């Protein structure tokens, strides 16, 4: 039996690229797309709605984790078998989703896309440093070794849907999912994925900054 796949895109102030991200996914054949507009102050909601996909709107900005959980809940209501999370800033390649789905088909509950498993990718040095710190923190707090604890492209099988319920709203969500994978003994694997850092994604003012990174770090300790 073929599985019902939903792609969930958390989006906050992504009016510049959200249209092209949706079209790229549709071009790859994915029609069940849910954009969760996380209280954007720009035209993200309007642009997404015009494409005819499912668009949910948070009245207030609640964070990436909260937006993903809303999207996953919506997908669950719509009888999804698999949910793929996909960043709204255009950094991921829709072609990678099929690799994640292959692993879900192979029996994994969670498949984590890793930007660092794929060689010869242009990743800013600061991103690499942040990622090493996040990976070490993840290992110290939860005893899990991963190469990309902050990846936004992930696939969740039905068994893993409820694992997201006990996670926080903000950026620490990505790491908390790993904690839940371990706690609930879910079968997980990392697969290499492409990443494209554009001038747009690098200059976005609401991305994780150094200060917010420290707060995320503190919250991760509190949540451990």
């Amino acid at each position, binding site marked *: 039996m*073929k*599985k*019902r*796949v*939903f792609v969930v895109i958390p989006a906050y102030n992504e009016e510049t690229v959200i249209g092209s991200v949706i079209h790229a996914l549709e071009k*790859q*054949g*994915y*029609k*069940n797309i849910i954009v*969760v507009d996380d*209280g954007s102050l720009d035209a993200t909601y309007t642009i997404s709605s015009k494409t*005819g996909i*499912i668009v*949910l*709107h*948070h*009245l*207030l900005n*609640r964070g990436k984790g*909260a937006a993903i*959980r*809303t999207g996953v*809940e*919506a997908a669950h*209501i*719509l009888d999804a078998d*698999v949910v793929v999370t996909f960043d709204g800033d255009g950094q991921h390649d829709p072609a990678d989703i*099929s690799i994640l*789905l292959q692993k879900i*088909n192979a029996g994994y509950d969670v498949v984590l896309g890793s930007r660092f498993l794929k060689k010869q990718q242009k990743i800013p040095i600061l991103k690499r440093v942040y990622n090493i710190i996040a990976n070490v923190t993840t290992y110290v707090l939860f005893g899990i070794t991963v190469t990309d604890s902050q990846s936004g492209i992930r696939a969740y099988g039905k068994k893993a849907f409820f694992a997201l319920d006990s996670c926080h*709203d903000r950026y620490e969500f990505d790491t908390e999912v790993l904690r839940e994978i371990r706690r609930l003994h879910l079968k997980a694997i990392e697969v290499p994925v492409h990443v494209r850092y554009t001038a747009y994604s690098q200059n976005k003012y609401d991305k994780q900054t150094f200060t917010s990174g420290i707060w995320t770090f503190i919250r991760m300790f509190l949540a451990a």
Partner: protein
Amino acid sequence: MDVYTNVFSCIIMDISLYQYGIAVIAAYIVIRRSIMFFRRIQNQSFLKFFSFVTIWGGIAIFALWPSLAREITHALGMGENLNTIIFITFIILFTLVFRLLTLIERLESDITSIIRKDALSTLLPTKLRKGTQDEK
């Protein structure tokens, strides 16, 4: 003249730079709050104004005249138990901060739940395109 010179030199000699710094910051906050209150800026209740003036005014006074704290404890009959009082105060403050953090976290969680419920209320299965989207 001698009295004034003595008082002036006493202030200059006995007060460190950091004490002046704290006093200036405290004075700035008190003045700013006073202006906000008297200009009737939104959310500036009398209780807020009074709390700020009392706390920051107190900080300024104790920064400039630290010995005043000892004199007050003696006058109240607490004698050398000042350290115990400070310790207990810290415990109370930490407990309060912890309770506040817990409360804020619960409120944040409640807000997210309401926002999510509202977002999902617009979800209609008819929005789904015909047929199921399966794996490629």
